[in-house]
């Protein structure tokens, strides 16, 4: 199955599955955010992607770019907090790259994800190592860009997973956890975990065959 990619249906499945997994992981993400932030990251993400999925169903957009925009607007309008503008930006940038496409091949997808990552940096001004979701996006995208053939792609999920878990020992430099200073070390960054899950579900929608990561037991 060379030329793996994504069509509208797969994208809708991706959003649907991500929303469901977020709902299931809500308490865990809240608990992580409780320890080093304000305890709402799970609630925020679940609310946002529930809305996104509903809007996607209601509006049935005609191409991937439009679908991404529907998701972006849903997130911007329902999440708030730090994750709202950040995940909103991700889908806005992705939408720009996938404009008018009914189907995207892997290069197009990676290009879109690169634009999304740049968007995160522009919005949040974080660097790799600041204990934010960028700590997952940076290495995962680097890997995907270098290893975009099908078999290797599966490994990207493992890269994202490790990257999310590696945020545990870091001291936060950006976001709410940064106020804790050294006390922020010892807990995985909630946004990194939701981003790790993002890549898990995304790659599963791309090509299938991804084993479900037991985030709850790994991060708590």
């Amino acid at each position: 199955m060379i030329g793996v990619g994504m069509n509208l249906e797969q994208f809708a499945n991706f959003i649907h599955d991500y929303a469901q997994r977020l709902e299931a992981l809500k308490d865990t993400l809240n608990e992580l955010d409780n320890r080093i932030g304000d305890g709402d990251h799970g609630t925020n993400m679940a609310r946002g992607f529930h809305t996104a999925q509903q809007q996607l169903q209601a509006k049935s957009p005609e191409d991937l770019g439009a679908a991404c925009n529907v998701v972006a607007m849903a997130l911007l309008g329902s999440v708030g907090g730090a994750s709202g503008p950040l995940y909103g930006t991700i889908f806005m940038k992705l939408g720009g790259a996938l404009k008018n496409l009914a189907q995207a091949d892997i290069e197009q997808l990676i290009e879109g994800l690169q634009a999304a990552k740049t968007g995160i940096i522009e919005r949040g001004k974080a660097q790799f190592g600041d204990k934010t979701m960028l700590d997952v996006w940076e290495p995962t995208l680097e890997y995907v860009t270098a290893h975009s053939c099908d078999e290797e792609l599966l490994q990207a999920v493992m890269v994202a997973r490790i990257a999310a878990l590696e945020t545990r020992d870091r001291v936060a430099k950006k976001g709410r956890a940064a106020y804790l200073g050294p006390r922020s070390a010892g807990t995985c960054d909630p946004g990194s975990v939701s981003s790790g899950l993002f890549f898990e579900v995304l790659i599963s929608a791309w090509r299938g065959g991804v084993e479900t990561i037991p985030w709850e037991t790994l991060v708590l």
Partner: protein
Amino acid sequence: MKKLINDVTLYVNEMLDGLVAAVPSLQRLEGTQVIVRSELSEKVGLVSGGGSGHEPAHAGFVGKGMLDGAVAGEVFTSPTPDQVFEAIKAVNQGKGVLLIIKNYTGDVMNFEMAAEMARAEGIDVEQVVVSDDVAVENSTYTVGRRGIAGTVFVHKVAGAAAEAGLSLQEVQRVASKVVDSVRSMGMALTPCTVPASGKPSFELADDEVEIGIGIHGEPGIERRSIQSSAETVDYLLEKIIADMKVSADDEVAIMVNGMGATPLSELFIINHHVAEMTKANSLHVYRTLVGEYMTSLEMSGFSLSVLKLDEELKTYLDAPSAAPAWTQTEG
């Protein structure tokens, strides 16, 4: 979780309706989480807001002489850009709008996106970002300080400046002066519980307190054994004053702000010692606010804010305001 609520998903919605039902001078923009003055004056518009759970902030500071609009996010979650945009449009009277933002990544990003939307529609929008919390180190490598209760002084002074007819740039200048002149720090005896999560934001032993907390139930910078009210005041006040450029005979305004569950009697006991210590530091207390201004749900604890005054700030601080949560004490 023991709370007097109905459906957690309706928390903010019912709160806002219950607020406007009680305060006729406020209205809720239909279909939004935006509270604006029922009657707007022709002047620079002032919009603030943030997550809910800080009541009376921010809607309680909407009224003649303070804010024109306040945007309420979910509990402790900054509001979304579209909501802030609605507030900007509603209060804009052609003289531009100033956004008063507390320094949190989420608040800054969401308000800035709203500002971009508004500018795209030709509305003049400026902003000030409040960062009064001395608990947090301020360096170029960090996100900078948090905005906490000192924000209320910015609402008051900027509100009076706008009411006095100043231009957007002038109101922004005055607001920035308050931001530069106000420092705060807080502590907690107990955590709070965000309704949607249902769990306490942290756990403390019976003899422990958190020092240097934010206003979202975040743990503070340090956990310590509980001390007396006076010792606690000494600790916070010292950090605050060390960070300010105040010298003997300077005039200041003080805010002793309850976090939600601290009895007013304890806040007065705290102020008793604050008054003694400011005197010992040769500071003249021009005005003192004691009460709940910027809370964290049912958290027990308090924050202290000190605002260094000059003649301009005194005038605007003294100006009357009809905002329901602003208490005017006669001089």
